[in-house]
């Protein structure tokens, strides 16, 4: 099955890349963009067939490597 992981900066952590994107959008004439937060998207192809077990494994992967929980949040979705 497939796991999709979104890693984003926690609220309250300054996101310089997001700020730069927001600024660039403004200078391209896209008005009304109040905030931009950017992050990473990671796709994992898993051999595991049990959704609950897969989620548990990916949860551990996020905590140990995929996200730095000092500054980042993560969200997991399991498909297939």
């Amino acid at each position, binding site marked *: 099955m497939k796991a999709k992981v979104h890693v984003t900066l926690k609220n309250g*952590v*300054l996101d*310089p890349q997001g700020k*730069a994107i927001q600024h660039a959008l403004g200078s391209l004439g896209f008005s009304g963009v109040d905030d931009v937060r950017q992050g990473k998207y990671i796709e994992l192809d898993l051999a595991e067939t049990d959704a609950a077990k897969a989620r548990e494994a990916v949860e551990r992967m996020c905590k140990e490597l*995929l996200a730095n929980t*000092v500054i980042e949040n993560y969200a997991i979705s399991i498909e297939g």
Partner: protein
Amino acid sequence: MKAAVIVFPGSNCDRDLAVALEKSSGKAPIMLWHRETEVPQGLDLIAVPGGFSYGDYLRSGAMAAHSPVMREVKRMAEKGVRVLGVCNGFQILTEAGLLPGALMRNRDLKFICRDVHLKVENTETAFTRPYTKGQVVRFPVAHHDGNFFADDELLKRIEGNGQVAFRYAGADGTVSDATNINGSRNNIAGIVNGKGTVLGMMPHPERLIEPKLGGADGKPMFDALVEALS
């Protein structure tokens, strides 16, 4: 002093650190390959160098923090062996949990390579003893992800414990947003652990160890380590 320098495949300041250590101690340090699962007996200092450890494509230092050798470094650090992490080494030490906080992309998103002035905050460690509190030193930085982050609570703890070793400052020692090269919280350029035995810093003391290279403010740190640990 028996010193070792960790070598990840993408380390690129390993030689520079080894040269600096040898210059002060007269003895070449042991170069420790990242796959080593045991470190030599009787080490006094482990240095984690700058570079791009495993390419740093996920997050600077994230993968290196889980390497076999870092498990040993952690074990040694717990026993009180001194650990110095410079640049990527600092990133690795935070990712490995040996130091608090995290290092994020620089505020202006660009790689920065230049000499910066640092205000020395804590002189009670083997690394920083030769400097005086409040002294201004000049070290080079060369990083893309040096923006030190800690949330308010953690920051308070780090500051309260006197764990800040260096802050980005002006030539006259002023610490302000204008002297904050990368957006680090409280201008933090380097911190130590609670016991003062592990130092992580973004600036490179090993790059200014002789006047020919443009300065020698980094030399006393290595001299002092040799003196304290011999």
